[in-house]
């Protein structure tokens, strides 16, 4: 079963050649690896390759079971598994890149402390749309371009999740 795995900008083709207990032969692009792989603690894999010991801690994305954050001692890499199903979905997907800025969201959970704008307001670049507080620190979210407030989805005092859309622009 050869599948495509994306890591940063790189697209790697991965194929399992053989498996014998924990001993595995696997091909990544044009390189063949003989490794000994074992799951140690949950989500932590130990890989031995030419006697070198690698530890990989995997955290699956909470909203996408094919996306991982993989951490070594020194670094964290984002990895996406692109199997046949995912490839099909990707080909169908419209380009959803945020042309300009279409919505305001917070990367962290928190509490909305202030919304100094209202629906229909016209804003200048750099104007603050919403203030969110978490752990004694307030963050102001501003618009990057001239725009109009299409909708405000939360109220002052609301508790919001990470990556939740707060305000829609047009």
């Amino acid at each position, binding site marked *: 079963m050869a599948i495509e*795995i994306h890591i940063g900008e790189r697209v790697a083709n991965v194929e399992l050649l053989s498996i014998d207990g924990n001993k595995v032969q696997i091909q990544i692009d044009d390189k063949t690896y003989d490794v000994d*792989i074992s799951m140690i603690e949950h*989500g932590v*894999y130990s890989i031995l390759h030419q006697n070198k010991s690698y530890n990989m801690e*995997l955290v699956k994305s909470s909203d996408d079971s094919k996306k991982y954050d993989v*951490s*070594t001692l*020194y670094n964290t890499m984002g990895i996406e598994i692109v199997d046949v199903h995912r490839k099909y979905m990707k080909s169908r997907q419209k380009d959803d890149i945020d042309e300009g800025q279409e919505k305001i969201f917070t990367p962290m959970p928190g509490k909305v402390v202030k919304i100094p704008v209202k629906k229909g307001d016209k804003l200048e670049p750099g104007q603050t749309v919403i203030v969110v507080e978490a*752990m004694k620190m307030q963050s102001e979210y501003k618009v990057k371009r001239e725009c109009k407030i299409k909708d405000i989805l939360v109220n002052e005092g609301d508790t919001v999740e*990470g990556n939740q859309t707060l305000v829609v622009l047009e």
Partner: protein
Amino acid sequence: MIKKILIANRGEIAMRIMRSCREMGIKTVAVFSEADRTSKHVSFADEAVCIGPAPSKESYLIIDNIIEACKITGADAIHPGYGFLSENASLASKCQKEKIIFIGPKPYAMCKMGDKITARQTMIAAGVPVVPGTKENLTTKEQAEAAAKKIGFPIMVKASSGGGGKGMRLVKNTKELWDAVLAAKSEALSSFGDDAVYMEKYIKSPHHIEFQILADKFGNTIHLCERECSVQRRHQKIIEETPSPLMTPELREVMGLAAINAAKSVKYVGAGTVEFLVDDNLNYYFLEMNTRLQVEHPITEKVLGIDLVKEQINIANGKKLPFKQSDIVQRGHAIECRICAEDAYNDFMPSPGIIKHVSEPKGIGVRVDSYVYDGYEIPIYYDPMIAKLVVRAASRKYAIERMKRVLYEYRISGIKTNIGFLRKIMDIPDFVKGKYDTHFIEKHIDTLLKPPRATKTLTEDMAIIAAYFDYIMNLEENTPKTSAEGRAINRWKEFGKRKGVLRI
């Protein structure tokens, strides 16, 4: 004798206090907000009382709820920890009225030290050096300009009730002065409800060095040497060490004496900390006194072999200090790093969320004071500090090597932390040489925020292999075997077995 202590706090400091209580055979009462039901201090305590909704202002900061919790549980003493109500003289007064022992100084000392102008006046009277400046609230332009002329520019305008950098202005010349005073006053009024401001000489490249004080009820007051706290970000300490690389035995003696005098001048009882600014010429100036336990108290415990919370409780019980000044000798070197749930690469934005997996460093010379566990959700309402990582070793060099080792051993997944940022500090030559002041982070921020070096292809390939196997394992697992505790133990082993290979 105290039999049951209510800890008016949460997180790691609540746990830390309870540990010493348990060792002394004292029962513990936790208080918790509605957001903290699953916080470790609740299950670690003997008893627990809910004191209100999630926001601190509606729970941890409500004196009446704390007192009520004491009454419900029959606690005969309160330990306030740090932060929250720890420097609130009203709580201490209320305790006196209710015949509950407040583990801390008397309200008198807290009031004297709580207001900066009053504290300055008290210190000047006690002969403790303060930063040259004014003793009174600045009210007229003439008064301000005359004072500034006498002190010499640059100067700092500071709010009397201030803290955390609010109501503070750096002024370089007479032209800017009065506007700066007015701005500071307005900010002070809106932040602290008090527009009193004063003026201090601006100290260039200052070191933040503090002395730990212990005083019993019989007038015995000693210092427990210094802590160097100059590694700060936005006026918040992130790394502390002891001894200070700047310190000399002579300076330690005179500063220690000044700290003792500062404490005696307000009839201080209990554990407290006198903070100083020290310049490159080793001139030192009283900054403020914290009338409570400090976050960084464990480094003092590490080099002296003393349990400060036990001493606090013994003092509250009316016991005499068990040691004299001459017994206090630092051994080795200790460093503390504050582990915070924050994203260093995104302007240190807090990163609350669910901890997927924690693996804490162990072995020789390391102490971890933390309160998080696998599956714990860090609430958004409180401080982002989730752990204190403390090491001790025979020398400063060994202590830095040890701190690097334990920072690499510390793994927390699911949220972002500042562990990587702290690791980089350990490699900055100025830190390694001990040549730094409070501008350290600022000075090296570019190096510290440089993105981590590119991963080697080989490492990437190993990561790909791990992700690949996790993916296909989940595919093959049609009926996940969930064990009693909701864990699928040794799934990989199971996988191996299904493939017909039995690992011994």
